[in-house]
C-alpha cells in the first residue's frame, strides 16, 4: 500500500487538523460574540469544511488509481466510494435547502432563547468525536482492529452524547425559554419551526451515523476487516465526518449569525 502514510504520521496529521478545527471554532465563537461579521464566519466555516473534507473524509481518494479488474475488491471499493460521495452530494441538497429556508424566513436574526454555552459544548463534542473517528479509521487502515474498536467506541459515546444532548437538554432548555415548535410571529418569523427542523434533521443523521458505527464496530469484533479490506469502516467514517461537516454550517447559522431576537 504505497499511497498510505505510515501510521504515526497519519495519526499526527489527525491531531494537527483537530487543533486547527478547534482553534477556528473558538475564533468563530469570539468573532460572533464581539461583532457582526457574517462574511467572516462564512469564510471560517468554509475553511473548516475544506479541512474536514480533505484530511478526515479523504475526498482525494476519489481520484485514486484502482486497477482495471472490475472484480477486484479495490476496484469495487472505488465504485462504492463514488457512490457514497454522490449520496452525500444529494444529501447536501437537503441541508442546503434547510439553509435557504432559514435565510428566507429568519434573515439576519436568530432566536435569543438558545443557550450559547450549550451550543458551543455540543459543537465541541461533535468535533472531538470526528477526531477519534479519524484515529479509528487510520488504525484500521493499518490493520489494528483493537485500536479501531476503542476509538470507534469513544466516537460512538461522544456521538450519543451529542444526540441525547440535543434532544434531551438543548430542546427542553430552548422550549423552557419560550422557543417551541409553534413559536413565531409575523415580526420574528417562524423561529421555532426553523430551529427544530434544522436540528431535528441533523440529529436524525447523527442517529443513522450511530447505527452505522455500531454495525461496523460489531463486525470488527467478528474480525471481518483487514488493512486491505475495510470498505465498511471507511464508509461509516466518511458518513460520520459528513454529519460533522453539516454542523460546521448549522452551528453558526443557528447560534452565531445575525442579531438575537426575543420572541415576545
Amino acid at each position: 500500500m504505497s499511497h498510505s502514510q505510515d501510521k504515526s504520521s497519519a495519526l499526527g496529521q489527525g491531531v494537527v487538523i483537530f487543533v486547527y478545527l478547534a482553534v477556528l471554532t473558538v475564533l468563530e465563537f469570539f468573532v460572533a460574540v464581539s461583532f457582526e461579521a457574517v462574511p467572516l464566519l462564512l469564510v471560517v466555516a468554509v475553511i473548516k469544511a475544506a479541512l474536514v473534507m480533505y484530511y478526515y473524509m479523504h475526498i482525494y481518494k476519489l481520484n485514486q488509481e484502482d486497477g482495471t479488474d472490475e472484480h477486484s475488491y479495490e476496484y469495487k471499493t472505488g465504485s462504492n466510494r463514488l457512490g457514497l460521495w454522490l449520496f452525500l452530494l444529494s444529501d447536501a441538497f437537503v441541508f442546503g435547502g434547510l439553509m435557504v429556508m432559514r435565510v428566507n424566513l429568519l434573515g439576519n436574526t436568530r432566536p435569543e432563547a438558545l443557550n450559547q454555552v450549550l451550543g458551543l459544548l455540543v459543537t465541541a463534542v461533535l468535533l472531538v468525536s470526528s477526531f477519534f473517528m479519524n484515529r479509528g479509521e487510520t488504525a484500521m487502515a493499518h490493520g489494528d482492529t483493537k485500536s479501531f474498536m476503542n476509538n470507534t467506541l469513544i466516537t460512538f459515546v461522544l456521538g450519543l452524547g451529542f444526540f441525547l444532548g440535543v434532544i434531551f437538554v438543548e430542546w427542553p432548555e430552548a422550549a423552557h425559554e419560550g422557543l417551541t415548535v409553534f413559536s413565531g410571529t409575523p415580526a420574528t418569523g417562524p423561529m421555532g419551526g426553523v430551529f427544530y427542523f434544522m436540528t431535528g434533521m441533523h440529529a436524525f443523521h447523527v442517529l443513522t451515523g450511530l447505527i452505522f458505527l455500531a454495525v461496523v464496530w460489531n463486525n470488527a469484533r467478528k474480525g471481518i476487516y483487514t488493512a486491505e479490506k475495510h470498505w465498511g469502516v471507511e464508509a461509516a467514517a466518511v458518513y460520520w465526518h459528513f454529519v460533522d461537516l453539516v454542523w460546521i454550517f448549522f452551528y453558526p447559522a443557528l447560534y452565531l449569525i445575525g442579531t438575537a431576537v426575543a420572541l415576545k
Partner: protein
Amino acid sequence: MKGFFSSALARGLFWQLIGTLVGAGLVTGIRALMGLTATDTFFFTEPAWVLGGFLGVLFFLVGSGVTSDWIKWARGIDTPDHHEDHHTGWDKYANVSLDHKVIGIQYTLVALALISIGGLFALIFRAELAASQLQFLTLDIKLFGQNGPQLYNTLMSLHGMIMIVSILLGISGIINYVVPLLLGAQDMAFPRLNAFSYWIAVPAAVLLLMSLVLGGFDTGWTGYPPLSARAPVGMQMFFLGVFTAGWSSILGSLNVLVTVVRMRSKGMTAMRMPILVWAAIATSLIALTATQLIGLSFQSVMFQRLFGMGFYDAAKGGNPVLFQHLFWFYSHPAVYVFILPGLGVISELLPVFVRKPLFGYRWIAMSSLGIALVGFVVWAHHMFTSGMNEYLRVPFMYSTLLVAVPTGVKFFSWVATLWKGKISTPTPMLFVLGGIIVFLMGGLSGPPNATVSTDLHLHDTYFIVGHFHDTIFGGFVFPFFAAIYYWFPKATGRRMNETLGKIHFWLMTPSFFVLTFGMMYVGLLGMRRRIADYDPALGIDSAHLVLTIAGFLIALSVLIFFYNFFKSIKSGEKAEGNVWNSRSPEWQVPSPMPVHNYEQPFEVVGEPYDYGLKDAGYVKFIEPDKGTHK
C-alpha cells in the same frame, strides 16, 4: 395464481398493510392513553395515518426481501455477487431480481400500469368537462368523503402526480434495460441498490392511491400551501407517496452515474458513448440532487400540519412563496428529467432508420448537459404571478429563454440527420418522428409562457396545460413507445405486430394534436386550469366536447398498444437477430439477451453512429483466447 401469493410483490403488499396498521395503531394507542381524540373521519387520526404510511413502506421493503442481503452484510455475513433467478415467466417480475434487464422490465410494467390508472382518472374528469355545468360529478354525490367537484380535484391532482411517477419509472425502465447493454457492462454498479430503487416505488404508488380514498386533496400536483396545509388527510398520503417515490429516483440515478463512470467497455471514451448514455447522465445529475428539494418542501408542509411549525403560516411569520421556490427548484429541472432520456432515444434511433451518421454528435452530447445545467436556474418562471419580488422576473425570463438554445441544437441535429437520408418508417421510427414534431409544438408554446408580459395572461389557463402535454408527450410518451417497439425484440425474441403498431400511431397522433391545440385554444378564450366547470357564456362547450372525444381516442389507441404488447409476447413473429440492422452492441448478439449479457467482452473501435460509411465498425468482440482479459 399460487405463484403470485408467494411472490415478493404479494408479501411486500401484505407487510405494507401490517406496517400501516402497526404504525397507525401505535399512534392511536398513545393518543388514547394521553386522553387525546383517538379516531377521526377516516377512522385513524392524521398523525396515525402518517406514521402508518411511513411504517408501511419500511415493512414492505423488509417484507418483500429486497433488503435481506444488506441485513446480512450488516451482520457481517457475506453473500454471493449474483443470485441465480429460479423464477420463470411472469413470476420473474413479481419477485426480487438483481438482473438489470429484469428490473428494467419491472419498471416498465409498473410505469405502464400507472399510465393506465392515471389515464383512467383523466378520462373520468375529461368526461365531466365535455359540457359546461356539472353532469355526474355533482354536488350531491358523496364518495370517499368527497362531493363531485372535490372528487374532480382529487382525480385531476392524482392524474398529474401518478403520470409524473409513471414517467420517472418509465425512464428508469429504459435506462436500466438499455444503458448497461450499451456500455457492455454485466449489470449496474450496485445491483441490490438497483432492485431497492425499483421496489420502493411500489409502496409509493400504493400511498398515492391511498390519498384518493382518504378524503383526497384539491391542490393539484404542486401541493401549494396554504391550501395544502388544510386539505384532508389525503394530502399527507400524497406527500408521503411522492417523498417515497423520490428515493427511487435519487438512488436510481446514483447507480446510473456510477455505472457509467466505472463500467464502460474498453475504448468507450466520453466522445464515443452512445447519446442515450449522455442523456442518462444529464437526467441522473438532476434527479440525484434536485429531488431532495421537492422532498424537503413536501416534508415541511407535512410537519407544519403535524406539529404546528409555522414555515408557510403567515400568522407565525411564515412565507408561502418560499414553498414555491423550493418546489420549483426541483419541479422545473424535473421536466428535463422527464424528457432528456426520451430525446436521447430519439437521437439513438434516428440514425438507425435514416442510415446516415447522426449530425453533430458532440453538440448533441453537450446539449443534454447544457439543458440540465441551465435548467437549474429557471425555476421562478412558474412564479411570475405569485407575488415574489418583481425584480426577479426579468432574469428568470431570460434564463428560461436561454434553454431554447441547447434544445434548438437537438432539433437542428435531427433535421440535418434526416436530410437526404434513406428513411424507412417501421413503427418505432414513426414514434420517433411523431415525438420530434410534437416536442416542437411544446417548444414553440413555451416561450410565450416564459415571457412575463404574455405569461401574466396565460398563467393558470388551459394554454399551459396544452403546452406541457405537448412537451411531455413529445419528450417522453412518444419516445417511450418508440423504445418499447424498438427494444421489445431484444427483451422477448419476438416482434410486436407492425399493423397494430401503425394503427396505434395513426390513431394517437392526430387525436393528440386535436387535444393539445384544443387545450391551447380554450385556454386563450378564458378556460382556467384545475376546475370542474366553466361558464357556458365563454362559448367553448363544443370545443370541450371535441377535446373529450380526442382524449378517448387516445385511450383507445393505447388499448390497442396493450393488446399488441401482451399478444406479441406470446405469439409475436420471431425476431432473434439484428432486426433493425443497428450498429449498437446489444444487437450484435442473439435475442432475447443472454442472462449475463455478453459472453465475450467487446472493445469500442469506432464512432457509434457512422451508418452508411464503409468499414466503419463500432464495436469488436474480443476473442477469448487472443484477447487479454481487461
